[in-house]
C-alpha cells in the first residue's frame, strides 16, 4: 500500500499538471470540504503532538524539583502513567467523555474502534479518521491532567498508586469533568441558560489535576524533614534548575498546541489569536511571579519564575479563546502573583514540592473566573455573556455579566468538589489496600533504589571502582576480538 516514493513521484506529477491550471477529469475532482476537514485535523494532529510533548515538560519539572535519590522513579512513572491512561481512555474514558448519553456521562464509544457508532439518533456518527484524531487529542488532555496530579506527591508515594489512580482518573474522573463542560450536553453547559466558558481547560484540565493532587497530599502527608520540630517548613531544594527550566520551556511550547489546538479548526486563522493570547498570558505570568518573589525576598527565585510561566499559561487557558489581547497579560500577571503567594502560603501546611496546587489549582481557578471578567462580546458566543469589565466599562449588560461570573464560579466549585470527593475516595481506597506511602527507610534511601533497584543517577551513587577491569570477552561465534587486558590500566 505505502509506496512512499512512488507516491511522492505521483504527487510531483500532479503538481506539474496542476501548475499550468489544467482542468482535471471528474473522478479526480477534489472537494474543498474534504480539504477543510483534513486541514482542521492536521492542525489537531500538530497540536496533539505538542500536547503530548508536555509530558516531557512535566517529567523534567518533577525531576528537577526532586532530590537526586528520587529522579528515576519520575521517569518510570511518566511512562507507566501514560501507558495506563492510554488504555483506560481507549477502553472507557473516551466513551464516558463523549458527546453521547446524558448530562452526567457519555454512554457510547467504549473500546473505541473504527466504524463504531457513537451517540444516538440524529447526532449519531460512525467513527472515522477524524474521530480517531479527536479521541487522541482528548487523551492528550487527559494525560496532562493526570500528570499534574503527582506534583504534590514526589519523593514519598508508592509506585503502585500511580498506576491504580491513573485507571480511575483516566476512565472516570477526568472524562466526567470533560463531559460536563465540553460535550455540549453536559451539566455545566447550561446553568440558567449560560454555559461555563473554559476554552482549553483552566478548570477542566488544570484545576482537575490540581484538585486530585490536593486529595493525594491530604492522605499522604509531608516528606520527612519538611517541617521542623517547631512546625516551621524547611526548604528541601530540588536538584536541578536546568531540568526545571527545560521543562518549563517545553511546557510553554506545548501550550500552543494545548490552547490554540483547542480551536479544533483552522477557520479564519482563529487559532493564531488564541496562540497570541497564550504567549501574552505566559509573559504576564513570568513577570507577575518574578516581581512578587523579588519584592518578597529581594531575590529572583528561579523555580518561581518557572512557576510563574506555568501559572500564566494555566490562567490564560480558559480565556485564550474568549478575551482580547490586552486582557491576556493582565490575566497572566495576576496568575503569576497568585502562584507566589500561594506557594509561600500553602508551604506552611502542605508539602507540595513543585507548586502544583498554586500553579495549576489557584491559577486554574483564577483563569476560569477571569473569563467572567474579561470575556469579550466578540468571542464568548451566544450561550454566554461578556465579562463584568465590559459590563462596567463597556456597553454590556452588567447583570448578565455578573451572571456569567457566577456561572464561572459555579463551574469552578462544581469541578473542585466533584474531583476532591472522588479523588479522596480513590486514594483512600488505595491507601487502605496496597498503601499510599513508602516506608520510612525507603523514603530515606530514596525511591529510586527502593522501588527501582537502582539510583536514577547510578554512577553518581555507585563508586566507579566497582567496575574493575575484566579480562573476559564472551565467546560468540563471529567475534574474533579478544581484548587482552593489560595487567593494570592507568588513569
Amino acid at each position, binding site marked *: 500500500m505505502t509506496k512512499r516514493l512512488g507516491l511522492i513521484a505521483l504527487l510531483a506529477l500532479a503538481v506539474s499538471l496542476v501548475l499550468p491550471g489544467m482542468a482535471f477529469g471528474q473522478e479526480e475532482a477534489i472537494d474543498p470540504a474534504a480539504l477543510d476537514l483534513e486541514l482542521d485535523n492536521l492542525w489537531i494532529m500538530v497540536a496533539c503532538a505538542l500536547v503530548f510533548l508536555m509530558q516531557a515538560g512535566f517529567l523534567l519539572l518533577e525531576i528537577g524539583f526532586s532530590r537526586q535519590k528520587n529522579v528515576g522513579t519520575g521517569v518510570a512513572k511518566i511512562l507507566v502513567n501514560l501507558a495506563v491512561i492510554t488504555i483506560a481512555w481507549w477502553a472507557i474514558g473516551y466513551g464516558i467523555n463523549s458527546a453521547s448519553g446524558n448530562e452526567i456521562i457519555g454512554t457510547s464509544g467504549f473500546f473505541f474502534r473504527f466504524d463504531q457508532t457513537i451517540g444516538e439518533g440524529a447526532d449519531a456518527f460512525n467513527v472515522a479518521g477524524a474521530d480517531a484524531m479527536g479521541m487522541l487529542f482528548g487523551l492528550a488532555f487527559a494525560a496532562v491532567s493526570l500528570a499534574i496530579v503527582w506534583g504534590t506527591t514526589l519523593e514519598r508515594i508508592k509506585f503502585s498508586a500511580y498506576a491504580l489512580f491513573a485507571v480511575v482518573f483516566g476512565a472516570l474522573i477526568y472524562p466526567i469533568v470533560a463531559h460536563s463542560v465540553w460535550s455540549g450536553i453536559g451539566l455545566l453547559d447550561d446553568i440558567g441558560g449560560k454555559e461555563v466558558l473554559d476554552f482549553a481547560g483552566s478548570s477542566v484540565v488544570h484545576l482537575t489535576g490540581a484538585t486530585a493532587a490536593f486529595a493525594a497530599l491530604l492522605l499522604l502527608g509531608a516528606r520527612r524533614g519538611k517541617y521542623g520540630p517547631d512546625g516551621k517548613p524547611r526548604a528541601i531544594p530540588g536538584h536541578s534548575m536546568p531540568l526545571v527550566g527545560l521543562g518549563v520551556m517545553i511546557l510553554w511550547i506545548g501550550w500552543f498546541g494545548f490552547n490554540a489546538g483547542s480551536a479544533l479548526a483552522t477557520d479564519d486563522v482563529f487559532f493564531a489569536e488564541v496562540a497570541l493570547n497564550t504567549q501574552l498570558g505566559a509573559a504576564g505570568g513570568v513577570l507577575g511571579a518574578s516581581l512578587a518573589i523579588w519584592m518578597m525576598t529581594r531575590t529572583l527565585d528561579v523555580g518561581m519564575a518557572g512557576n510563574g510561566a506555568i501559572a500564566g499559561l494555566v490562567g490564560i487557558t480558559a480565556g485564550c479563546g474568549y478575551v482580547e489581547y490586552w486582557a491576556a497579560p493582565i490575566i497572566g500577571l495576576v496568575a503569576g502573583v497568585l502562584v507566589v503567594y500561594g506557594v509561600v502560603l500553602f508551604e506552611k501546611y502542605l508539602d507540595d514540592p513543585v507548586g502544583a496546587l498554586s500553579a495549576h489549582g489557584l491559577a486554574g481557578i483564577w483563569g476560569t473566573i477571569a473569563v467572567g471578567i474579561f470575556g469579550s462580546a466578540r468571542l464568548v458566543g451566544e450561550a454566554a455573556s461578556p465579562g463584568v469589565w465590559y459590563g462596567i466599562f463597556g456597553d454590556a449588560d452588567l447583570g448578565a455579566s455578573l451572571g456569567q461570573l457566577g456561572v464561572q464560579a459555579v463551574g469552578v466549585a462544581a469541578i473542585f468538589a466533584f474531583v476532591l470527593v472522588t479523588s479522596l475516595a480513590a486514594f483512600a481506597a488505595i491507601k487502605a489496600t496496597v498503601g499510599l506511602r513508602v516506608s520510612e527507610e525507603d523514603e*530515606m534511601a530514596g525511591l529510586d*533504589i527502593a522501588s*527501582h*533497584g*537502582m539510583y536514577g543517577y*547510578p554512577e553518581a*551513587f*555507585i*563508586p566507579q571502582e*566497582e567496575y574493575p577491569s575484566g579480562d573476559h570477552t564472551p565467546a560468540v561465534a563471529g567475534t574474533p576480538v579478544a581484548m587482552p587486558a593489560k595487567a593494570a590500566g592507568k588513569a
Partner: protein
Amino acid sequence: MKKIEAFIRHEAFEPIRAELLDKGFPSLSISEVKGSGRQKGVVEHYRGSTLTVNVRPKMKLECVVDDKDKGVVVETILKHARTGDVGDGKIFVIPVEEAVRIRTGEDGEAVLQAHEEEEIPA
C-alpha cells in the same frame, strides 16, 4: 591537640553539629566517603542484571580539639550517631602536633575552637 575523625551516617551530622556548636565547638569539617565495615554491601538491579555494591556512602567528620576537649566531642558524636544498628561507624583519635590559623598566622591550641564576639558571617 587531637584530631577526631568519625565515620558516621549522613543523618547524624546535623544534630552533632548543632550540639557541638552549643558546647563551644563550632569548627569542624566534613566530607563524603564510602566505606565498608561490618555493614555489608547491597545487591542492586539494573536492567535485569545484578550489581553488588560493596561500599556504602558515609560521612567523615574531622574536628581538631584541645586534648582536654576530646572526651566531650567523642561523647557528643556517640550520642547522636548511635542507632544501635550495624553501620553506625567508628571514631578515631589521632595526635596533632601543631595547628595554625591561616587568617592570623597564630598557632597553638588557642586557634582551635575559641570564638570571640566580633565574628561576622563573611
